[in-house]
């Protein structure tokens, strides 16, 4: 859910929706202050942000599957055919 301008203190349900915008650095200065103030006072949301950061680190460790020698050779053939065409 996208939050419109936060008029007052934010609650946990709103804070979890602001995490990505916060990490992307697109919150206004005012909203950033409110978000950080909430986290300082809220153990659950502090942990939540830490979990999202941990999730991002784990995502960064997912490696693509290795290219098989057959596929690699097939693509080299493709290039040779392309040159001949």
């Amino acid at each position, binding site marked *: *859910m*996208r939050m419109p301008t936060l008029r007052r203190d934010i*609650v*946990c*349900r*709103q804070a*979890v*929706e602001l*995490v*990505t*915008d916060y990490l*992307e650095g*697109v919150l206004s200065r005012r909203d950033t202050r409110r978000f950080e103030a909430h986290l300082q006072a*809220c*153990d*659950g*949301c502090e*942990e*939540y942000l*830490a*979990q*999202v*950061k*941990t*999730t*991002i*680190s*784990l*995502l*960064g*460790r*997912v490696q*693509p*599957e*290795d*290219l098989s020698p057959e*596929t*690699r050779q*097939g*693509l*080299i053939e*493709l*290039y*040779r055919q*392309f*040159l001949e065409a």
Partner: protein
Amino acid sequence: MSDDDLVRRLRSGDESAFVELVDTYQSSMVRLAQAFVPSRALAEEVAQDTWLAVLKGLDRFEGRSSLKTWIFRILVNRGRSTGAREQRTTPVDISDEAAVERRRFDAGGAWSDPPTHWADEVVERLSNGPLVLKVRAAVSGLPENQRAVVTLRDLEGLSSKEVCDVLEISEANQRVLLHRGRSRVRARLEEELAKR
């Protein structure tokens, strides 16, 4: 090796330049294509078609974007059209999807069932293979557009601008998809860690 050099060598028939490109991008291309098509075999086909389109289109490469984002953009377009043919494409997701289930908050919006602590503990064993596998499976289960954004941003490490360029979406749309995708993966991880 700069993009311009690579393109020049490809045009002049330098096979080692092509091999270098294949070794750099093929695995990532197949992984990205899997966001749009239902099988790995089809994803490999999409990647192969992409290489041919790249070679045929070399003269049109103007260096306005990097070679990488140009190749990925061609791949995404082919993946989308192949996926549509395979009827995998889901309607654009415009639903209001909460990062955390509503029942975990009280009426005032404060946590009633707050997250248990595991972020630090998991960081200490980040090389933990089984958890990385869970995360990979969670990404595979994401809706197409969330999967594509998370794959490009968090798995490939592209910038938000590059992701918008590859997927031809706005920055705001990219952030919504990233938010939903990451939130879902975190929730899967939470479920997994609760079992232990």
